[in-house]
C-alpha cells in the first residue's frame, strides 16, 4: 500500500496511523478477544476500530489515543455481544483458547487460569478488570471511557475480584 491515510488532520495527537497500529492494535485485538472469546470476531472488531479511526478522523488527545481505541472497541464488542445472544444461548460461550509462544506449547494449562477466569466474567465486570489490571487505566479514566460513575467502576472491580477469587479457589480445590 503506497498511500497511507493521514489521520492527524484534525487531531492534536501527533501519531500516524502506522504508529497507532503498531502501538495499540494488539491491545485492541486482545481486549476484544477477551470480551468475545473468538479470534475472527476480535479481528473484525479491530478492523472496525481502525477503519473508524481512518474514516472519521476523530479528535485524539495527546496520550489518550489508546483510551479512544479501546473505548470504541469495547462499544463494538458490546454491540456484537448483544446481537449474538442467540449464538450464545444455542452454542454457549466459546472457551478461552491460548495462543502461547512456540516454546511454551504444552505448559499452558495451569499457568493461564487467571486469564481464562477473567475471560469468563460477565461483560460489565470483564471490561473494568481488563482496563484496570490488563491495560493499566485508572478508575477515573475507566469511568470516562465507559461513561459510568467512578463508584460504579470501583464496585464492579471489587465484585469482579470476589468472583475471581471464588472461581480460582474452586479450581484449586478440584
Amino acid at each position, binding site marked *: 500500500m503506497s498511500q497511507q*491515510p493521514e489521520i492527524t488532520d484534525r487531531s492534536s495527537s501527533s501519531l500516524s496511523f502506522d504508529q497507532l*497500529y503498531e502501538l495499540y492494535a*494488539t491491545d485492541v485485538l486482545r481486549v476484544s478477544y477477551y470480551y468475545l472469546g473468538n479470534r475472527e470476531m476480535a479481528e473484525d472488531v479491530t478492523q472496525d476500530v481502525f477503519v473508524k479511526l481512518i474514516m472519521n478522523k476523530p479528535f485524539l488527545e495527546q496520550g489518550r489515543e489508546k483510551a479512544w481505541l479501546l473505548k470504541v472497541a469495547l462499544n463494538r464488542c458490546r454491540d456484537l455481544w448483544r446481537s449474538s445472544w442467540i449464538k450464545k444461548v444455542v452454542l454457549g460461550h466459546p472457551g478461552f483458547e*491460548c495462543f502461547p509462544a512456540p516454546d*511454551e506449547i504444552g505448559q*499452558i494449562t495451569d499457568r493461564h487460569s*487467571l486469564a481464562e477466569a477473567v475471560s469468563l466474567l460477565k461483560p460489565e465486570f470483564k471490561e473494568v*478488570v481488563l482496563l484496570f489490571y490488563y491495560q*493499566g487505566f485508572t478508575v477515573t479514566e475507566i469511568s470516562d471511557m465507559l461513561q459510568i460513575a467512578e463508584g460504579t467502576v470501583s464496585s464492579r472491580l471489587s465484585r469482579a475480584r470476589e468472583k475471581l*477469587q471464588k472461581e480460582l479457589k474452586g479450581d484449586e480445590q478440584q
Partner: protein
Amino acid sequence: MKLENLREETESALYGLTADDSLKYRILQKAAQTPAETTKKGFHPFPVLCSVLAVLLLLTVALNHVRPLTPVEPGEMTVFAAGGKEEGSTSVFSSISASDIVSMELTSVGKLESSEKCAQLLSMLQQESFPAADEKWDNDEYLIISTSDGQSVKYPVNEPYFLDNTCWECQSFFDLFRNSIGK
C-alpha cells in the same frame, strides 16, 4: 491469585494473538472501499425529511397525550403546589413563617391581602407534602408571597408541584384562593 499479574499472564497466554500486517492490510483495504460505497448510496433528503417529520408528529401526539399543549385554565387544575425555583430570594417555601406574610398573589387569579387568610392557605400548603415526582413543567403561573420585611418571593406553580424535593397538593387551591379574594 494476583490480578496484578494479568498483563504478564495475558502476554504469555495470548502471545500468538497479535495484530499483524495482514490485518493492517485488511483495514487499509476496507478504509479505501468505504468512501466509494458511501458515495454510491448518496444522500436522499426526502426520506430523511419524512423521518424527521414523523418523529416530530409522534412527539407532538405523545406530549399532547401526556399534557395538553393548550394552556390549562387555573380553575381547572387538579393539583397545586408552589416552588421548585425561587427568584429574588434564597427563602424556601417550607420555611416561610405564616405570621410574616403580608400578601399572596397568584398571577392568573389576583392578590390576596388578608394576612390571616394568607396564613391559612400557606399553612395548608406547607402541611400537604408528598414525595416529589421526577419531572415538572412550568406553566407561567406563579405564587408571589410578600412578607413583612418587605421581600417578595416568586415561586413557579408547576406540574407536578415541586419544592425542596416534596410536592404540595391541593385539589381546589385556585378555587379557595379565588373565594378568599372574593372573585
